[in-house]
Structure formats: structure tokens, C-alpha cells
């Protein structure tokens, strides 16, 4: 009936196999973790020294031979604001439709499938379609507005998904309670559903901001490459300008100014860090609500 001794070690081959795989697992995790640490450290160490007040508070000047990224910072902000203002009602509306209105299972499945599809389309394709549809067909030319509209389609799935998640956490009894008191559906949504899903909506916004800040391929042909100040928000919407990510590309690849590119990268990295942190905090709050 086999050997009943317990103090025998595993056969050498089995032990070696076991140990090797365990080491490999730890090694891979270490590689991933070190990679993240090294990437962030490298970008910040090489980029931060270049982030001067002058850099972030002025625009490029050939006369003084100075470089400033204020236009790109403003362009990024403008695009974020414009895209969010447009996408929020649409995305939240879509999520409300999916969870509160849609009665046909099939339609919901079709919408969810297309939303997933939308999330999988590469940004270069958004760029092309945005160029053809917004810039050419709607005659918006290469402008921040065209860029923002293109991004609206891109971040729509993010907003829909996070809002939907938090709408699902609203207890059914709230809905029944409100409707039982004779409230109309729209009144119920306005007063009960939307306020209790605010965390999810905000989380969606933060993720969307992250996506916008990092986006470049979709903006090349829609928002353009301009590095000059465009004036106030409404003037800027009609002008062509580069966001920070696009500016990074221009400085690195077309101007060969790696140090400026790294300074921009450091700024981007700081934004990404803040966004990740904010998303995490909110995510936790959302979970606690459950």
C-alpha cells in the first residue's frame, strides 16, 4: 500500500520543476514591478529638471529662443472640458437607458456589444473617421472642437460602463418606493437614480480624463499640431492646436528636442499619477457604498 513514511522529500525532478516555476512567477512579478518603477523614475528624473516656470507659463518664442508649453496645457484643458461637457449627458443617458428604460433584452445586448466594440477600436481609426466626419463633412476643419468630438466617441464606452456599474448598485426598493408614491419615471431618475450614481459618473470622468490626456493618434489629424496660444476657450475651439501628448511627439520626433519632450513627459506622468490616485480613492468609495 505504498510507502507510509512522511519525511521523504519530493523526487528531485519534481522538486526542481516546482522550484523553477515558483522562481519564474516571482521573477516575472519582479520584472513587472521594477519596470513600472524604473519607467516612472526615469521619466521624472530626466524630465522634472526641465519643468521650469518659464516652460509651463509661456509659449514658444523664436525671438527669445525659448520654449513654452502653456498653449498645449491650455489646449489639453479645453479639450477635456469640451469632450466631457458633450460626452457626459450622452454617456449617462445611455447608461440610464440601458438600466432603467430598455425593455428588450436583445436591444440591450446589441448596445452593450457595440459599446464594447467601440472600446476596442484603435485610436488611429478614430482619428481618420473624425477627420473625415467632423473636419471635412461637418466643415469644422482641423480644430480643437473636431478633436474633442472625436474623443467623445472614444470615451463614450468608459462613461457608459462606469455609470452603468453604479446604477446597478441603486437598490430596486428606491425605484419601487418612488414610483409607488406616484412619481413619474423621469422624476424618479432625476431625484433618485442620478444622485445616487454620482460616484460612478465621477469615476468615469476621471478615467476619461486619463484617456484624453494620453491620447495622441486620434488628435493628430483632428485637432492638429499648432503650438501657439489660441485665445479664450471659444476662440480655441475653432483653432488647431496640439495637446500635451501631441506636443511631446512633435518635440521628440520633429524637432529632436528630447529634453523638452521629457519635461512634457514628466508633466504627463504627474497628471497620470494624480488621476490614478483619484480613481482609486473614488473606486473604494463606490465599493463601500455597495
Amino acid at each position, binding site marked *: 500500500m505504498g510507502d507510509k513514511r512522511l519525511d521523504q522529500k*519530493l523526487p528531485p525532478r519534481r522538486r526542481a520543476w516546482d522550484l523553477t*516555476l*515558483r522562481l*519564474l*512567477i516571482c*521573477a*516575472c*512579478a519582479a*520584472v*513587472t*514591478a521594477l*519596470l*513600472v518603477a524604473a*519607467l*516612472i523614475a*526615469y*521619466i521624472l528624473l530626466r524630465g522634472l529638471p526641465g519643468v521650469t516656470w518659464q516652460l509651463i507659463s509661456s509659449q514658444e518664442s523664436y525671438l527669445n529662443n525659448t520654449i513654452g508649453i502653456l498653449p498645449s496645457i491650455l489646449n489639453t484643458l479645453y479639450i477635456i472640458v469640451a469632450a466631457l461637457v458633450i460626452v457626459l449627458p*450622452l454617456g*449617462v*443617458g*445611455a447608461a440610464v*437607458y440601458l438600466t432603467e*428604460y430598455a425593455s428588450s433584452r436583445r436591444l440591450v445586448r446589441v*448596445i452593450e456589444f*457595440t459599446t*464594447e*466594440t*467601440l472600446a*476596442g*477600436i*484603435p485610436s*488611429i*481609426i478614430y482619428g*481618420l*473617421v473624425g477627420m*473625415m*466626419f467632423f473636419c471635412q463633412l461637418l466643415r469644422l476643419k482641423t480644430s480643437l472642437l473636431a478633436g474633442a468630438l472625436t474623443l467623445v*466617441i472614444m470615451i*463614450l464606452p468608459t462613461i*457608459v460602463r462606469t455609470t452603468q456599474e453604479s446604477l446597478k448598485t441603486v437598490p430596486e426598493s428606491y425605484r419601487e418606493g418612488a414610483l409607488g408614491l406616484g412619481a*413619474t*419615471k423621469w422624476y424618479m431618475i432625476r431625484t433618485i437614480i442620478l444622485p445616487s450614481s454620482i460616484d460612478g459618473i465621477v469615476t468615469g470622468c476621471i478615467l476619461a480624463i486619463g484617456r484624453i490626456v*494620453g*491620447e*495622441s*493618434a486620434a488628435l*493628430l*489629424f483632428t485637432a492638429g499640431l499648432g503650438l501657439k496660444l489660441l485665445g479664450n476657450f471659444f476662440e480655441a475651439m475653432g483653432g488647431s492646436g496640439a495637446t500635451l*501628448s501631441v506636443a*511631446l*511627439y512633435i518635440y*521628440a*520626433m520633429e524637432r529632436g528636442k528630447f529634453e523638452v519632450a521629457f519635461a512634457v*513627459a514628466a508633466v*504627463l*506622468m504627474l497628471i*497620470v*499619477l494624480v488621476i*490614478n490616485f483619484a480613481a*482609486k480613492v473614488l473606486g473604494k468609495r463606490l465599493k463601500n457604498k455597495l
Partner: protein
Amino acid sequence: MKAKKFVEKLMNAVFFFCGILAVGCVLLITVYMVASGLPAIREIGLGKFLFGQVWASTAKEPRFGILPFILTSVYGTAGATLLGVPVGLLTAVFLSKVAPKKLADRVRPAVDLLAGIPSVVYGLIGVSVLVPFIAKVFGLPKGTSLLAAMLVLSVMILPSIISVSETALRAVPPEYEEASLALGATPTETIFKVSIPAAKSGIAAGVVLGIGRAIGEAMAVMMVAGNVANMPALFDSVTFLTTAISKEMSYSSGLQRQALFSIALILFLFIMVINVVLNVALKGGKKGEK
């Protein structure tokens, strides 16, 4: 009372519009891709376009063969997958099965951070650190190469692979693992012989998601691959489907421009196939859980 009913109806319509907006966007993108992509293919001939080995869009007698781009995208993605999947999967194993909870909770945000880094920042590090490094190590005149693109892409797809695989591994019923341990398997043997096979459809979904990311990535690849229309070779400058579009779009015209849209159509088809595969993989996973 009437006004109330009108508002109800109106809001119903508004939400319905938001709901089907995603469907509309996918349709719009599809229509644009097909409509703008077909003319050049018709003019050049599908066979010549897909299997032509020479791309000389600005030559006197232009030739539009995109086989180099297709193969580069396929090889580049395959290489990135080959590198990224083992590291990503084992990191996911570490996070879900090996690491103490506290350590896992520290490493996971780092992985999320990896997903948040803009692709131009990956490109910048690639072109300023990785490319010179490759040139030096392999004694090449220029380090911009398929290899550089593969390496950058393999890091960029890590987060998708890790987070989706980790979710799948966590969903493996603990009863399976208990049964394996009770039969005298070591924890490592249990992971490789029970947990990973049981999570395979979720892991596959993560891999497919990563493949989609890699094949659609434009900016980072444009910065490190050299953008010469060579047939793919590990140490040569190459052009991906995505970069073929973005590098010429700004100055293209006529048939050349139309051919770029045709490339986008091919890329779009690739992505659509991947999306369908992804959906099937995820569905398979859900069935497996039951």
C-alpha cells in the same frame, strides 16, 4: 397633466437616442471605413494591394503593396505577445495566488499605472533609451527596428493581460485548488495543473485584448520602428499598418490618400475579427464558470 406626459415621452426619446448612440457610432465608423477604403482597393486590385511587396506611394510610378505592413503588424504583435504573455500571466499568478494580500495590493496599482502611461511616453523612452541600446548591443547603424517595436509593445500590452488574467484566476473555484492540494500536489503544481487550465478562457480573453492593443497601437510604434516600408526583419526599420497610415496622411493626396484609407480598412477588419474572438472567449469563460 398633459405637460407631464409630454415630458415623459420626450425623456424616453432622449434616453433612447443616447442608448443607440453607440450603435450609431459603430455604424458611422464602419460605413466610413468601408466607403473610403474600397475605391483604392478597386483601382489597385485586391491581390496586388494585399500581396504586393513594394510600397512606393510617392514614386513616379507609384506602387501600393501593403504586404510588408501586414506582415510587420502580424510579426510585431506576435513578438510582443510571445514576450508579454508569459510575463503578464505569471505576474497575474503572483498577484492572485502567490503574493500575500498586502504585497499584491501594492503591486496591483503599479500595474494599473502601466496602463495609464500615454503611448507617446512609451515611444519617447523607446526612442531615447531602447533604440540606442539596441543599436549598441547588436552593432546596428540605427536601432529603430521591429525588435524595438516588439519590446515596447510587449510592455504596453502587459496591463491588459495581467488584469484580465488576474480576474480570471481569482474566479477559479477554491474547491478545485483544495482538491488538488488534498491529493498531495504542491501549491505551484496546483496553479499550473488546475488553476490556469480552469481559467484558460479568461486568460485567452486577456491575451486577445492585448493583441488588439498591440495591433492598433500607432504612436509608440511610429517613434521606434523607423517607418521604412521594408519586409519585416528583426533588426530592420519597418512600418506597421498603423504607422503606414499616420506617417503619410498629413501630406498625401489622390490615390495615395485613398490607399491609406484602404490600409485603415484592413486594420479595421483585423480589429473586428479580434473583437468577435474576444466576445466568444469571454462567453466561453462565463459558460465554464457555471
